[in-house]
């Protein structure tokens, strides 16, 4: 699912900036990235979150796993910014270290589906016929499963934990990239430069990698930012259902699950990990929004 509402940032740019002739996407991107407010806002939000997770040890004196059974379910205070959970573990520390776990897995989990989907999409789009039918048939099969049903079932079969998450997300996630790239290739391969490359006698691998790929990859990159959001949601959901990273590794999803039991008295326990997911999602959505504007060929 594309999480982006393209066009939002276009309106925020003053009209005289829009028709700038761009010689190549890369140069244009380098000289213009700061002109997209969405992109800058997204970078800032994500930068702050990733920075806070990275420097977690400097931002909290407590360990995210150290239990203190004499101080369980404390309300927020100067000692414990967000209070403590039912085992007396500091919530602020868990939030920071949980972000480390969830964001790292989410960003890594995008890589394999991106590569697999882009490759299959290129092959299906360029060769057509049987290759295309085969790839699209596999897409149909995966798409028939509700996303969460298949992810949950696969993680269950492979076994909960990081490895299960990567494999499950790869099996389910490649289809979006394959569809996007295939569609782009179908259009791009009709262009004159591909005909020129063919008549110059270049082989299919060279045409795909050197000529087509650079022109179709931007859409896949833009989608990847939305896909990271989807992966964070999947990881947090699996954590909530008890299928995520095993305890005591902190994880936002399990924090929300634990907090739900104390909703009547300690509402902050379930609320803040969810807010962390939402803010991260906003950062990525803005980033993707800005990227799609900046990378769009003029």
């Amino acid at each position, binding site marked *: 699912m594309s999480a982006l509402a393209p066009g939002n940032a276009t309106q925020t740019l003053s009209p005289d900036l829009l028709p700038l002739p761009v010689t190549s996407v890369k140069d244009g991107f380098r000289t213009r990235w700061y002109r997209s407010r969405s992109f800058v806002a997204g970078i800032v939000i994500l930068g702050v979150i990733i920075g806070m997770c990275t420097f977690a040890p400097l931002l909290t004196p407590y360990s995210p796993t150290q239990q203190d059974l004499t101080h369980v379910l404390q309300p927020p205070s100067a000692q414990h910014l967000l209070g403590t959970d039912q085992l007396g573990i500091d919530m602020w520390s868990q939030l920071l270290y949980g972000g480390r776990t969830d964001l790292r897995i989410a960003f890594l989990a995008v890589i394999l589906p991106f590569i697999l989907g882009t490759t299959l999409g290129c092959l299906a789009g360029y060769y057509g016929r049987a290759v295309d039918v085969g790839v699209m048939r596999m897409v149909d*099969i995966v798409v028939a499963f509700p996303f969460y049903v298949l992810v949950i079932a696969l993680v269950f079969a492979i076994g909960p934990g990081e490895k299960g998450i990567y494999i499950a997300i790869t099996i389910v996630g490649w289809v979006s990239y394959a569809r996007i790239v295939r569609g782009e290739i179908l259009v791009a391969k009709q262009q004159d430069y591909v005909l020129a490359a063919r008549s110059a006698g270049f082989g299919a691998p060279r045409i795909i990698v050197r000529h087509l790929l650079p022109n179709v990859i931007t859409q896949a990159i833009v989608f990847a930012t939305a896909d990271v959001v989807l992966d964070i949601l999947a990881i947090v959901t699996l954590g909530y259902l008890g299928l995520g990273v095993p305890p005591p590794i902190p994880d936002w999803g399990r924090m929300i699950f634990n907090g739900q039991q104390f909703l009547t008295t300690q509402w902050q326990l379930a609320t803040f990990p969810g807010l962390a997911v939402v803010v991260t999602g*906003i950062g990525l959505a803005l980033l993707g929004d800005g990227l799609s504007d900046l990378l769009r060929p003029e």
Partner: protein
Amino acid sequence: MNIASYVIKRILLAIPTILGVTILVFFMIHLVPGDPAVTLLGPRATPDLIAKLHHAWGLDRPLLQQYLLYMGRLFHGDLGQSFFFQLPATTLIASRTGATVMLLVTATLFTVVVTIPLAILAAIKRDKTVDHVVRSVPIVTLGMPSFWVGIMLILLVSLRLGLLPVGGYGQNLPQHLQSVILPALTIALAISPMTIRSLRASMIDVLEADYILTARAKGASSGRVLFRHALRNALIPMITVLSVNIGWLVGGTVIIERVFAIPGIGGLMLDAIGNRDFALVQAITLVFAVFVIFVYLVADVSYSLIDPRVRFD
């Protein structure tokens, strides 16, 4: 091509997908690291019991034969036997279908009720403040975990305001209805950003169509143009938008049923996972996928019936 042959052709096209789905579900058990029987039995595993389970699952036969056996059972309506409950999976699933269907229908209704006015508003006030607000909402809501939204609704509506039950499903129809309001709202909130965006785009296309201009030129009031001419033609895309998102709707119920302790198929799936009940998990996964394929099919057929402009080819 007439409608009957179009429907038949569309059903035939779904068959390879359903076959593929069964293959994926069948092979899920082979993704289990090590021996699923040993995993299931845990400390109770004796060579005798393991062999018995292998035989029951057909794991002592060649792979192709196993699959054919599995397909043969499926054709007889046998989705497998739950190891934990010692009951056929179909019986268990059937006993939970009511709650899930109730939740799905209510969630779909809520989605439609939220989507249509907002999408129309955004489409008429295109590029005005209202439109920008409606279009910015997904930036915030698409990153929200649906189960967390559910918990926040419990916190606000049930605990603070004391309006609706915190969970469960009740004993009779009025209680059922009361119990599904919050979970259905949660699911509707999760998918409406996607449905609003799609319907807004369709509405804009419709509003720019020639027949709208004609209606305006005839002197029809803007309300009449909107409801008699534009909305009717935008409802067809609404069916598409809903059917495209059916996977998210169904996937959402699995998680939301857990949040609100609703005894539906999704809750059954998560229970089965907790019990390491492979056959039941497989059966439910298959049922959900076949349901989604069925919805795609019905949507395709139904808008070919509603819209005379759709050609059957």
